[in-house]
């Protein structure tokens, strides 16, 4: 069976929505707070522009950015934008690096 470009695009959009629902549930479980769907969708698009590839990378960036109060179109904090915009870093290294920085910031708050 041949799948047309339109069908493929629809399939991709459906997968995106399902994925964002799972991210939303993940954040709810982790933080006991409920993110707005449109905020997660905007963060998804931003993650895509940062060159992230896998579900794990998207979920990591979206969950972390949301917990630090990022609400597009507002920019990411400098410490996130600097890492995510670094073309020398591979996608998994970007997400690993922002979690490292988040851990350091969290220690500073203790």
């Amino acid at each position, binding site marked *: 069976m041949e799948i047309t470009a339109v069908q493929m*695009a629809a399939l991709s959009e459906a997968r995106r929505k399902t994925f964002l629902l799972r991210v939303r549930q993940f954040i709810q479980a982790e933080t006991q707070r409920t993110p707005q769907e449109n905020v997660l969708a905007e963060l998804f698009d931003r993650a895509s522009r940062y*060159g992230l590839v896998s*579900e*794990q990378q998207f979920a990591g960036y979206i969950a972390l950015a949301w917990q630090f109060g990022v609400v597009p179109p507002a920019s990411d904090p400098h410490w996130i934008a600097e890492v995510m915009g670094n073309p020398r870093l591979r996608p998994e290294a970007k997400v690993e690096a922002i979690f490292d920085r988040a851990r350091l910031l969290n220690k500073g708050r203790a």
Partner: protein
Amino acid sequence: MSSFDQQQEAIKRQFSSAPPASPVVSCPKGALTEQEANQWFDDFKSRKEIPWNYPNDCCYNRAHVMARELQAVGVDVGKVWNYAPPPIAYIANPLRVSTSNDPKGYVEWGYHVAPTVPVADSRNNVTRMVLDPSIAASPMTPEQWKSLQGQPLSKLVFTNSEPYYRDEKGRVYPAPTNDEVSEIFDEHRSNREKNWRRDK
């Protein structure tokens, strides 16, 4: 809220390493997304065995290896050749690129070659882009690539990925074996060292 360590672990358990909604599904066959093109560019540039820092020579070997790998995953890869204008191109009107990878601060060529890939933007408009980490920081259009080489009278020729070397008259030469390709990289890494030693 759980710690970030726990969150990372939970993410690894609950989410996969596959794309969440493949951005390439609606891409025309053989094309890359802009992100994929950037990733390929960065991946190639990080390869230590490829002498990106020896712009004096080796473009044909670098282009061959990149093209071969892109072709292996179904990318509609081609090559773009930039020829200095005749007559006696190399002497009279060479291509010239500023670079910190030569003691003189620049290199001159009679021709230069790099692979090209079709890149689809978010509206599925496809543009052929050049991948050339030896002189560029990211994928660029052929016109941008040509202008980096400082010779307004030079001529661009587009081919498929097959020619290993193509002269300005269109004569093509077949690719060497994989072992020979590796040996050429070895030789050019060595030549780079000699080039810098000579200058001291």
